[in-house]
């Protein structure tokens, strides 16, 4: 089921997960990642046709409630950990490159 894990595979999935690795980290990662995948591959030994998947062991249906406003904490408090904020909003860098 698995494909061979190369430096490019790791780079590709790292990009999907918004991670990146230094060149010197890549080799360790490739070998450890291959070992882990090789190990989890074990589940493919089983015949799983017709078996229902368990996403949640919780035996009850998801409970619903009325959509009522119930404030927990205010805007100022919500922003106490913001790396950057302005006028009650989170501030992020421009999506397009900042030149110079």
């Amino acid at each position, binding site marked *: 089921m*698995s494909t061979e894990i190369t430096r490019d595979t790791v780079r590709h999935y790292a990009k999907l997960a918004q991670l990146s690795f230094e060149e010197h980290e890549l080799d360790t990662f490739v070998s450890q990642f291959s070992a882990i995948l090789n190990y989890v591959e074990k589940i*493919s030994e089983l015949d799983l046709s017709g078996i*229902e998947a*368990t996403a949640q062991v919780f035996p009850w249906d998801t409970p619903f409630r009325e959509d009522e406003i119930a404030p927990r904490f205010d805007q100022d408090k919500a922003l106490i*950990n913001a790396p950057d904020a302005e006028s009650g909003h989170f501030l992020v860098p421009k999506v397009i490159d*900042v030149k110079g």
Partner: protein
Amino acid sequence: MLSTLGSIREKLGSGEISSEELVQNCLNTIQGQDEKIGAFLQVHGEKALESAREIDRRRQQGEAMGALAGIPIAIKDNINIEGFHTTCASRMLENFISPYDATVIQKLKAAGAIFLGKTNMDEFAMGSSTEHSALRKTVNPCAPSCVPGGSSGGSTAAVAAGMAPLALGSSTGGSIRQPAAFCGVVGLKPTYGRVSRYGLVAFGSSLDQIGPIASDVPGCAELLQVIAGHDPFDSTSAPNPVEDFSAWLGQPLKGLRIGLVSEFETEGLQPEIQAALTRATAFLKAQGAECVTIQLPHTEYAIPTYYLIATAEASSNLARFDGVRYTKRAEGIRNLQEMYTQSRNQGFGMEVKRRILLGTYCLSSGYYEGYYLNAQRVRTKIIEDYQQAFQKCDLILAPTTPTSAFEIGEKTQDPVAMYLSDIFTVPANLAGIPAISFPSGKDQKNRPIGLQLMAPFFGEAKMLGVADHLHRHFAAPS
């Protein structure tokens, strides 16, 4: 000899000791020992003393007291206490201040408990030795060259070293029981949904549970009593009434059926742990319990299944740490994309990156069915194994870990070897059932051994009753 919750409360009630003195004793022990042990990431000394004085004042005035009034407790650093740091032992959250209390913290406050501080852990609870903490090294108080286990290694080390009589940990695959076994204390993972996860930083949401750690079983039962219950802020918290977790303490064992797992008799089980299991079985039989062999045929698939499901859920849960709202943001970035990547790169340690990568891989197009969906199907088989096993027995008795505490550095370079130290604990998390580890003697190197009991859904009370008998049997001079 560690103080038990019962003995401490007796002294508080009789006035032999005040809560302030009790807290001061804990702070003194922390000050004297924690430089060496490294259990705590932060100590809230002033606040703890202030709260203790308030409890003492109320007690003197004869006010009604909560179940844990004036009792100090240590909290794993992935559980939010308003106004204090919650770091998850990660650079990512080094400066994060909790804007709210986790539900378990609200319940503990209402019961009068005093928070000593926040304990070390593997970063984002990903690990089995606390060596993946980005902030501090923790050593095992019972075996200083060894790891305390993990991921709740700071909490179990704090209790084992007498720095706190009680602690909270969290378990995704064994993170309470495994370090409890390594440190010689009692640790319980409740039924999934028994304790609210609101305010616990999420790792694997379908597996995570907060649970109690104490020096004895009744202490664990009482702490669980305080933190359990339905919470409208956690839609997976169980709506059924909370039972009396102390109801089975001291009850006779006659007629109980205890299951022994044939698949757990594997190569690699340390001989002294096998001997502890044999001793426990002999004791149970002598008390009139019946021991039956049961099968959990999918045991060998539990760890691979766990690592696929837990990492998939983690890769999704940890997407929120992106440098926008509450985490460190990388310096010198030129655009939004770089902010995400660089903040995550600098904030996460290697084990966290490994797991996010594995989770992303097994959720990605082309691999989703073969890995993630099939892992969920194996999870069904594991649940069915337990359902069938509990037709034949009331509780399952097993080793908590295949070996006692391992040496610091022994497994850090080999992730799969590290993962395998959770082989006996992971299945209960996958099945959602409760399980408790209790001290069961020591090995030849004088390192603690833990055995565990597992119960069907919401079977905590009976499980605690039997665990207490066994713990007392092992603690008694033989």
